Every structure is written in C-alpha cells, then in structure tokens.
C-alpha cells in the first residue's frame, strides 16, 4: 500500500509543481494568446494533480485531504521529478520544460490506462486527452523557436543545456516504483524510455537542435532529494496555509 501511495504522490507532485511554475507566467506571457495557452495548460495540470491527490488521500486515510497533501508537506516529502521544479528562465526554457514533461506524460498515461490500478487508469485516461494538446502545442513551439531566428535558436540551445540532465529521471525508477513494476501493478518503463528518446530526438532534429552529448543524468526528486529551487517555490505555494492554518475561501 505505501508504494502505491508514494507513486501516486510522485504523479501528483510533478503536476502540482509544474503547474505552480507555469502559473508564474500568468499575466506575463509574450502575447495574450500564449499567456492564455500557458494558463490553460496549467489548469489542466492542476486538475490532474487534484485527481491524484484525492486518490492518495483516500489511500492514506487518517483525515488526509488533497489540501493537506499539497499544502502541509515539507520539501523532503515532495516526490516530483526535478525537471518540474526548475525555474522558468525565458519563454524558450519554459516551453522546452513543458515539452519534455508532456512527452513523458503522453507515453506514461498511455501505458497507465492499462495498469492494474483502476483509479490510476481512470485518471490517466482522462488526463491523456489534455496532455495530447499540451504535447502538440509545446512540440510546435520547440520547432518554431529552435528553427526560428538566430536569437530564438540561441535561447533554445541554452535552454537545452540547462534542462537536459533532468530528462533522465523519469526512467530511473524509485524503489516504490520498481516494487509496483515488479508486482505488475504498473507497466515496465523500459519500452517507454526508448520511445521517449526517439520522439524527443525527432522533434529536436526538426527544431535544428542537437541534444548535449553527455550521458550523466540527475536524479533524486522521486525520493525527496531536490534542487535548491523547490524550497522557495513551496514557501510561496504554501504560505497562506502555513500562516493561517485551516483558512478557507
């Protein structure tokens, strides 16, 4: 039971933290339509996070709620992948982060639809329809910027440099994840990893971008070991509940 809770929290936290980061763009997007696109995607991610948290809360019991899980856990208890918490940087870096995560979620949700856990399967089925939009939108933007002007290409190259080592963590299973794979609750990630790399490389190629050559990949987020960026993000996210415990609208 604790493994499925941890795994559900990993999925929930990744969505919540990415939505919080994307939400920082609200009112600051480069043009109105893309500001709206970004906040739409953010709302989808938050909705999916809520579904995962609600499910985790029923598994945990003891009065846990979606709110207590989002607002009252500490940094070390968050299991989101490191990529989600990375700063927005410029528009290009935000787009690239979204693309890497949407591509992962697209393949992951597709595989989770057939997993043995009914609720995870239902959330994945629902979420996949939304992630499909996110993936198309972010892929088009990666190509548009990478294969755009000299300036946009330069910025995408920098973004790739900044984010690349965080793209391996998806496929390095945490102990709880490996447990669920071994007992057949969720599918193996090996096949996903290959498809992921192929799809990423194909879009980067169309965008005239070359993936960095090193093979070192960061990890830790899934087990609560985060970069220096998560703490300040949580301080802002959780401020109201920490300062006024139990406050409601």
């Amino acid at each position, binding site marked *: 039971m604790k493994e499925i809770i941890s795994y559900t929290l990993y999925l929930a936290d990744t969505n919540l933290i990415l939505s919080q980061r994307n939400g920082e763009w609200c009112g600051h997007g480069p043009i109105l339509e893309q500001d*709206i696109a970004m906040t739409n995607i953010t709302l989808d*991610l938050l909705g999916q996070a809520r579904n995962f948290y609600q499910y985790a809360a029923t598994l945990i019991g003891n009065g846990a709620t979606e709110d207590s899980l989002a607002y009252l856990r500490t940094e070390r208890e968050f299991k989101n992948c490191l990529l989600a918490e990375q700063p927005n940087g410029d528009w290009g870096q935000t787009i690239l982060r979204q693309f890497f995560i949407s591509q992962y979620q697209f393949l992951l949700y597709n595989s989770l639809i057939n997993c043995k856990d009914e609720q995870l399967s239902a959330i994945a089925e629902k979420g996949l329809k939304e992630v499909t939009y996110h993936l198309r939108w972010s892929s088009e933007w990666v190509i548009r910027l990478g294969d755009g002007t000299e300036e946009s290409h330069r910025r995408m190259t920098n973004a790739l440099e900044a984010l690349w080592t965080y793209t391996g963590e998806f496929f390095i299973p945490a102990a709880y994840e490996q447990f669920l794979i071994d007992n057949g609750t969720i599918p193996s990630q090996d096949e996903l990893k290959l498809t992921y790399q192929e799809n990423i490389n194909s879009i980067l190629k169309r965008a005239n971008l070359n993936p960095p050559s090193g093979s070192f990949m960061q990890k830790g987020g899934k087990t609560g070991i985060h970069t220096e960026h998560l703490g300040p993000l949580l301080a802002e996210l959780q401020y109201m509940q920490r300062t006024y415990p139990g406050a409601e609208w």
Partner: protein
Amino acid sequence: MEIINNDTALIWKALEEVKDPEVPVLSIIDLGIVRNVVVSDEELIVTITPTYTGCPAMDMIATDIKLLLAGRGFKKVTIQNILSPAWTTDWMSEEGKQKLKEYGIAPPQPRQQICNNDLFAPNEAIPCPRCNSYHTRRISEFGSTACKALYQCNDCKEPFDYFKCH
C-alpha cells in the same frame, strides 16, 4: 412546488434546469456530464463526470444539483464524480449544439472527423457561428475556458469561440 417522487425520468428532466455556469445556455444534460441517477429510499445519487480535469465549474455544478433537488424534496443527495469513461464532446446533445451556435459559440465537430495530432496540421474547418462561412482561421487552440479555442472569421471578421472537439 413540484415534488418529484422516486422517478428517475423526472429527475433527469429536472436536471435540465442546472446550467453550466461558464456557458449558461447549456444545461448539464446538454453537456452530457450527468452519467447516472440512482434513487433509493434513503438517498439520491447523481453521478457526474468533468469535462476537463481542471474545470472550476464542477464544484458549482455539484452545489447547484444539490440545491435544485433539495427544493424538490430530496433531503439526501450525494454527488459522485467519475473519470472513466472520459467525457467527450460526442456526448453533447444536438439541441445543446444548436443552443451553442445561437449563443455565438461554434459547436464541436464530431470527433471522428478530426483527432489529427500532426504538428502544424491544418486547422479544422470550423463554420463561423454568425455568418456560417467556412473561411475562418484558428488564432489559438486555447481560449477563455479549457473547453474552447479562439477563431476568427475571415469574411465577417468576427472573432468567435469554438467549443473544441474533445
């Protein structure tokens, strides 16, 4: 006040009075988000499914259903949320699509005709809800709510929302 007895057909009919707060011409029946109504002696269970996971209207819709049915004499109403099968615009009623068009929102096209996920795919041919011209263009796939995209008519120049096929 009309009191409904345990007749599910009448309850379905009554639920037509609950509107989508963001697109108030549509009832929740038009939208196809009411999936089941079960009545027993003790309680009434209404099962609904969200359009999009982050749709902020869902909490309000659940409250509106409870208020309406309380007014019809049901003391204990439980709202259940289900996610699977996932909502699709194919569940929207023909009447609902007509109401959308009259409201100035282009109704969703049938799903099987699109689902083209190719990058930079040509826009769907969406008729302008005002002048019916197919000479329209997509401004953005994301609009004022999760369920809509932004379009503009090249003939009458009117910008409009398209309730996107989902």
